């Protein structure tokens, strides 16, 4: 009995200590995530010139803090600093994190998506939410191009000459008209619009992948087409067929058999790959028609 009476305060103390530890418990948050994206403020940044990667997210829930997002793997970019803004209220929580980075070499650079794991508020299942990834084309700066200084000087001189010529022409026209005493009626200005940039729809992208698959009947082409199909269904990489079908929730029924054919071509044994690709191409043709 004496042992028991001594054990009771110890157990209470242990319970209180564990209670404190409980406050640091990290369980998965249940979230509705309407948007989660990654972008850069310069798609063609220059070497040794800082630029920014911006991660934005909106949660329907009012969150005190957003510290569960795993920042993207910056690979060859150097992180100079980061700044996080979180604004929460009745309308939910807006999260924005700006990473200031710098590239030390030119060429294509891939920035992996930022992500986090949470229970999806829509279906109550734990999921990995990911942003898009980024491919940046880093251009060589002055350090990489020995003629950059000369080129800059030439460009400046040409610009100054152009300005001088323009001033001279305007002055000449002004004095000539003044001499004639004729005031010309204002002429409507012709605005030359830049040629419209063709916007490629997901279906256009899928059509491209279909053509690529016809030209190159390989597993890699199948996976590229699968990626385009996943994007059409609003799914990101890392999701399974069941996720994609769940995301569609009965919408686009014409897409369902095509998704299944694609899945088969993606994972069937090599011996059956060509037959699976035949079926997939046919399915794509029917869908795109």
């Amino acid at each position, binding site marked *: 009995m004496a042992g028991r009476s001594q054990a009771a305060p110890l157990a209470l103390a242990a319970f209180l200590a564990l209670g404190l530890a409980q406050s640091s418990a990290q369980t998965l948050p249940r979230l509705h995530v309407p948007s989660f994206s990654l972008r850069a403020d310069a798609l063609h940044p220059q070497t040794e010139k800082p630029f920014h990667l911006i991660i934005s997210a909106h949660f329907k829930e009012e969150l005190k803090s957003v510290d569960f997002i795993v920042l993207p793997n910056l690979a060859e970019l150097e992180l100079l600093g980061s700044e996080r803004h979180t604004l929460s209220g009745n309308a939910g929580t807006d999260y924005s994190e700006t990473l200031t980075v710098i590239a030390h070499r030119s060429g294509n650079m891939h920035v992996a998506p930022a992500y986090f*794991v949470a229970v999806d508020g829509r279906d109550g299942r*734990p999921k*990995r939410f*990911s942003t898009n990834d980024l491919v940046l084309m880093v251009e060589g700066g002055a350090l990489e191009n020995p003629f950059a200084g000369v080129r800059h000087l030439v460009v400046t001189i040409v610009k100054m000459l152009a300005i001088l010529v323009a001033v001279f022409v305007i002055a000449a026209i002004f004095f000539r008209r003044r001499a004639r005493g004729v005031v010309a009626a204002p002429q409507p200005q012709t605005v030359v619009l830049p040629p419209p940039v063709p916007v490629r729809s997901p279906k256009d992208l899928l059509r491209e992948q279909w053509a690529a698959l016809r030209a190159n009947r390989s597993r890699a082409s199948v996976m590229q087409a699968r990626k385009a199909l996943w994007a059409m269904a609003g799914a990101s990489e*890392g999701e399974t067929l069941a996720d994609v079908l769940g995301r569609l929730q009965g919408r686009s029924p014409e897409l369902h058999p095509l998704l299944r054919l694609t899945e088969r071509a993606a994972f*069937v044994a090599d011996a059956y790959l060509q037959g699976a690709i035949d079926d997939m191409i046919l399915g794509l043709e029917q869908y795109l028609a």
Partner: protein
Amino acid sequence: MTTASTRPAQLIAALQETIVGQRSVVEALVLGLIANGHVLLEGPPGLAKTLACRALAAALDGDFKRIQFTPDLLPSDIVGTRIFDQQAASFSTTLGPIFANVVLADEINRAPAKVQSALLEAMQERQVTIGPQTHPLPSPFIVMATMNPLDADGTYALPLAQMDRFLLKVNVDYPNREEERSILERFAMHDTPFTRGAATLSDVLAWQQEAHEIHLDAKLKNYIIELVAVTRDPKGNGIAVDHLIERGASPRATLAIAFLARAKALMDGRTYVLPDDVRAVAALALRHRVAFNYRVVTENVNPESVIAALIAAVPAP
């Protein structure tokens, strides 16, 4: 290769004629059968765990034996013993209840460690040595062990190394209201109806052989490896559950996921595994192989949600 005359789906349909609801339990039993592994069932009493095992044995027309584990059970009560025949002046061997196609080890955690070891050794070796003779166990041979998580007093918890011997672990949950109504209507007035002969033992052996031929793509092999790796280093994969996990899953989990994914593909009538198959079976193979520490209790964390989070953290190919 032998071709089975029936498909696993027919066996599942036959089992569902006896067992109301519990579709995931029935599927898990058939997965274990196809993957040639043993099944651990955990759930409160009265949830048709025993019924499911008996229904499976009946549907296969195989031998079924039930061993109720108790604290006074001896290894010889399971594997058999040698008895001296005074008239013949020689020893004769009496084989134990483990010599059956479907063996139900009821409340396995109620027997002491030496009895558990005897069973688990037989499960692993698929043979039993009694005296000088070695007796092979029948084929197919599947042990379904049940554990009751509620009455933990006077039990001998299975060590992780022994849990690892089970290919999969199924958590049996309560039925919903509609299922409970069906149970009432089906069983209240009649004896339990068992569907017999939905498949044969040779069908099961053929399925096991077919499952080995199911194609598992290299991308899926990597996916399986990542799924197991995340249990050992959750933080490296962005999941803050390190403080809850004592030890990650063993390489046996990697093999188990692969076996079960192939079995799932076969069950769904495919000759290739999909990422969905791997994800569907991952929890079955991982939940009893990841060792959690005391914090899951003190922080009131459901280990199932941790396993689900770990699986969700790994992007599928």
